């Protein structure tokens, strides 16, 4: 059974459709205006919205705009009299929005719900995540453990790995009542971040013409997802810390604090080491946010999932466009051979681009001749900060010692790996005059 919001000002249509969907087992609310739809969306989480574009007090697009960005959004079907709206809808609102041209019929509506159910059942874990690799199974176990608790979670992982999807998965598994509220700390201006997070009272500052509820308030009894948490200015972090410690919020310009009950899931693409070295997150705040830290693996650590992910992206495009393209054997080999420095986001981009470029009468997806984007730079080994400040000789000694240790003091193997002759290796060890100290072995003379 789905929770459905039907937004249409034609009572003859919406009454009948509402009754039909109810008879089919769905739970339906009806709104006849943009204002009513916004009101309904404030109070409930919906699985699907049917949305007329022409409403008495505005456009259906105004309803779309009121959906919380990046949140646990419902699927949206635009009901339109203009087939040309398709491209506009897809380009503006992405893959979670499709359209049906009037006049509708029951079969097409039923198919939407069947597709939703099929899509959810197609191995999407917690309604969000695709993948059966060991790395993902480990992730699922962590989500299962933390979801029923109230613990704050910090998601760590490279850009494009799907940290927001993992946050949605935790929210889904927690069975919280409302929407997950999401915000990108990097997108909030430093002047307004306090107001965004905690809300403000009327007259709190120039332009505060009315009381505004903050993200914490909106996420009460639910989940607040703070992406790019390390982009929050250090000067404002104590305010966030205080809310996390006390579970109380005071609006900007307000006097009284009021209680909030929400789990905070934060995310960063920085490593734990970077958090420490770059001093971008207060230590006390880290411990409040990362009660349960979760590492989201990059795609190169879950290459077994590429066929599933590619298939899932293509299945969606096929469904939206009434096509039945598949990924051919050679194409799949190429997809699984690439390292995907841009992670799942880059894979999805490649599939979407290839889908658009594939000839209309083709049966298989035509991949581009090479995969790359301006951002999918190849990872180059960076100089470890441990090495900075050391002489070349010191670094060489450490390298030799480490290699010998790795190969249990087998000098022949170590020399091969180091790219020198065994004699050169002995000469180096003798030159240091500290063979015992460096390698822990004796007898450093070159066997003639």
């Amino acid at each position: 059974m789905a929770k459905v919001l039907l937004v249409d000002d034609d009572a003859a249509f919406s009454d009948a459709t509402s009754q039909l969907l109810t008879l089919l087992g769905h739970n339906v609310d009806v709104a006849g205006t943009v204002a009513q739809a916004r009101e309904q969306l404030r109070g409930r989480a919906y699985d699907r919205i049917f949305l007329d574009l022409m409403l008495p007090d505005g456009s259906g697009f105004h309803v779309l705009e009121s959906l919380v960005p990046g949140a646990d959004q419902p699927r949206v079907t635009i009901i339109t009299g203009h087939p040309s709206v398709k491209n506009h809808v897809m380009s503006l609102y992405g893959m979670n929005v499709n359209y049906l041209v009037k006049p509708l019929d029951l079969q097409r509506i039923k198919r939407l719900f069947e597709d939703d159910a099929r899509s959810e059942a197609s191995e999407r874990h917690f309604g969000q995540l695709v993948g059966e690799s060991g790395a993902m199974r480990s992730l699922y176990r962590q989500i299962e453990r933390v979801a029923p608790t109230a613990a704050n979670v910090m998601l760590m992982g490279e850009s494009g790995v799907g940290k927001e999807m993992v946050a949605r998965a935790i929210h889904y598994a927690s069975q919280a009542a409302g929407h997950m509220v999401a915000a990108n700390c990097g997108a909030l201006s430093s002047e307004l971040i306090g107001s965004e997070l905690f809300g403000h009272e009327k007259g709190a500052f120039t332009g505060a013409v009315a009381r505004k509820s903050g993200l914490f308030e909106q996420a009460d009894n639910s989940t607040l997802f703070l992406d790019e948490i390390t982009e929050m200015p250090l000067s404002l972090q104590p305010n966030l810390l205080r809310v996390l410690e006390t579970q109380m919020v005071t609006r900007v310009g307000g006097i009284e604090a009021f209680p909030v009950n929400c789990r905070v899931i934060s995310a960063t693409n920085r490593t734990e080491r970077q958090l420490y070295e770059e001093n971008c997150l207060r230590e006390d705040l880290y411990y409040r946010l990362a009660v349960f830290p979760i590492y989201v693996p990059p795609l190169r650590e879950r290459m077994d999932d590429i066929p599933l992910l590619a298939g899932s992206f293509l299945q969606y495009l096929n469904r939206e466009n009434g096509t039945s393209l598949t990924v051919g054997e050679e194409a799949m080999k190429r997809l699984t051979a690439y390292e995907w420095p841009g992670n799942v986001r880059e894979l999805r981009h490649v599939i979407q681009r290839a889908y658009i470029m594939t000839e209309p009468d083709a049966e298989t997806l035509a991949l581009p001749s090479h995969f790359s984007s301006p951002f999918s730079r190849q990872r180059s080994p960076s100089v470890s900060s441990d090495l900075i400040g050391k002489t070349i000789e010191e670094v060489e000694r450490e390298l030799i010692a480490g290699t010998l240790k790795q190969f249990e003091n087998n000098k022949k193997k170590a020399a091969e790996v180091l790219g020198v002759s065994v004699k050169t290796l002995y000469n180096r060890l003798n030159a240091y005059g500290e063979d015992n100290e460096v390698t822990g072995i004796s007898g450093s003379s070159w066997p003639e």
Partner: protein
Amino acid sequence: MKLQEYPGAPGLSKLVHDIRNELNAIVMNAELARLLLQRQEAGDGAMRALDVILDKSSACGRILEEMQEPG
């Protein structure tokens, strides 16, 4: 004569839009009536749906008449 060729059709796209809206209500009420009858739950619900179909069919007829009026 095709609609696009109709010489006296000001705001043709609006007329098409209006007809689509009426058909939308007609189809969904027909679907409702059929489902209620299939489930033998017809009662007042099916009757109301049939009334809407008749009303909306009349509305369609009026729109078509407007289209035929010389512009």
